[in-house]
């Protein structure tokens, strides 16, 4: 029995090592040809001229960071509402409903994003452009709503349940005595939250945010529906763009030559290194909080 359990555990570790090996091995052609320059160059014309995934990395980072900027305050606010403010009844219904957002498959997010969200984004883009156009990120208008911006919105919705469920679980670990003590000193509810709840869970919440980032960086299908999988030529988010995961989903099945396939394995290797680093970082930042356990609960 012990041997069997040990075997299962070793298999998990071996699988992870093999993931790195398979990606590096199959990406070998691209890795030896492009080296680290792959990370900064951005020419990607399959069959003609591939130099690097710089544009894909840019699109991945911008869409994910945008999702993070939007989902973090929202998620923390929802976490606070569910743990500190909502009446018990509301808590028991709204909490699972928010978590349901995490159960919706990514293909449905993609499909919904394309048909419902993209037209909506198209209608609000001119307004955003005229209000924020002085920032290079918002300095263009898209012909339709298909853009890095739409991808950011879809990712926001996808990681929101993760950040909110994790921060709610963290806030619930703050001892009632601590909160009562602050309240007895005359603190308002917000001051209690800021002084005791947020300040004692800041490391856990940061870890939750990092985990959300990890999921956003690796999302392929939902992003592929709304981002347009085009060449990334400008830094502007209202133009169609591309991301690492999305590019693989879009082009891997129809790869034109071995170099193209190999370049996508290389892109996947970059993605897997980033995702392993986020998992490691989350565990290191979280300290005594086991945010990964909450993530497991929130994701299923």
């Amino acid at each position, binding site marked *: *029995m*012990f041997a069997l*359990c040990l075997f*299962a*555990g070793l*298999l*998990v*570790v071996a*699988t992870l090592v*093999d*993931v790195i090996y*398979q*990606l590096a091995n*199959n990406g070998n052609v691209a890795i030896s040809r492009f080296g680290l320059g792959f990370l900064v160059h951005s020419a990607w014309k399959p069959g003609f001229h591939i130099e690097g995934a710089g544009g894909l990395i840019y699109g991945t980072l911008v869409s994910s960071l945008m999702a993070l900027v939007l989902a973090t305050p929202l998620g923390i*606010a*929802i976490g*606070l509402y*569910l743990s500190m*403010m*909502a009446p018990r009844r509301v808590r028991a219904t709204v909490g699972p*409903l*928010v978590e*349901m*957002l995490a*159960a*919706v*498959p*990514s*293909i*449905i*997010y993609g*499909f*919904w994003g394309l*048909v*419902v969200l993209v037209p909506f984004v198209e209608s609000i883009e001119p307004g955003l452009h005229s209000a924020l156009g002085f920032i290079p990120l918002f300095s263009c208008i898209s012909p339709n709503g298909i853009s890095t911006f739409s991808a950011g919105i879809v990712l926001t*919705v996808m990681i*929101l*349940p993760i950040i909110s469920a994790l921060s709610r679980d963290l806030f619930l670990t703050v001892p009632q005595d601590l909160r009562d003590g602050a309240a007895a000193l005359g603190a308002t*509810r*917000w*001051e209690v939250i800021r002084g005791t709840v947020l300040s004692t869970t800041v490391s856990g919440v940061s870890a939750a945010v990092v*985990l959300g980032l990890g999921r956003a960086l*690796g999302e392929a*299908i939902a992003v592929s529906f709304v981002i347009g999988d085009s060449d990334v030529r400008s830094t502007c988010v209202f133009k169609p763009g591309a991301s690492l*995961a999305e590019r693989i989903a879009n082009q*891997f*099945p129809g790869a034109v030559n071995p170099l193209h396939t190999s370049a*996508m394995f290389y892109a*996947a290797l970059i*993605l*897997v290194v980033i*995702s*392993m680093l986020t*998992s490691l970082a*989350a*565990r290191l930042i979280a300290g005594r909080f086991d945010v990964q356990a909450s*993530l*497991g609960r929130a*994701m*299923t």
Partner: protein
Amino acid sequence: MSATNEIVLGESGLFDPTAPLAPSGNLRRRSVVDRSVQVTATAAALAAVAVLVIIVVGVIQHGASSLSLDFVIKDPQGLAGGGIVNSLLGTLEIVAAGAVVAMPLGILTGLYLTEFAGPRSRPARVLKLALDMMQGLPTIVVGLFVYGLIVIPEHQQSGFAGAIALSIVMLPLIARASQEVLLLVPGTLREAADALGVNRWRTVLTVILPAAMGGIVTGAILAIARAAGETAPLLIADGIYNPNTTSFNLFHGVASIPMFIYTSYDLPLTQAVARAWAAALVLMVAILLANILARVFLARSRAKMGA
């Protein structure tokens, strides 16, 4: 904080006990901040629920018109006719095959973490980190991994490769769920078995696993529901482009609902898109129902174990 929170003074400059008790100055500012935080938090929660409603209603609106009994029980005809029963059964087959691999491994991993390795021991810490990383793997990367591991040596994409990819998605979730439930099994049960001189593996098989089974099965159902909706691993590892395939040979391409949606949406036929929506509705309802049922079940089994 500046001290503007003075005692209200009367016109004479002395304390006036009849002055109204309404907060002023700093106290008023504090309560305004407090109020606005509460309103914001409530609004955020409402917004999240609203988004869920918008998504569910959107899928129902677009999908309900093409949904019929025939759609769920008949094979497809041509590019945009007939039903999706082949994709439904294909999804069930791939997911079941994946679960057959992932469930024993996941449960054994959970058992290793709770019954055999000390919670702070080095192997347990390494394994937990490995599970975290596996859970964090982008599903498209899992697809590419299985492509390199199975599809390239076998020279063909297959339902089997898809099942292995899905088992990698499920395994960390099942392991985590099992570990949590196993930790809830009272230590007194283990001690009682020890006191009777039962050896470890027999204790695990006859005492601990039966006590934890309800929770483990629910965790597994949730993991399976998650895997059933994954598209990216199947796109790479199973790669079925003909949604009309009615073969269920695991070592060839097998149709699945997510891939049906993915490929139908690409067809230049409005009817095909409508069918994709209907399939999306079927998938969403199935997954959300499985989630709700598993949650109810989980809450009940947790309550039974007194946690």
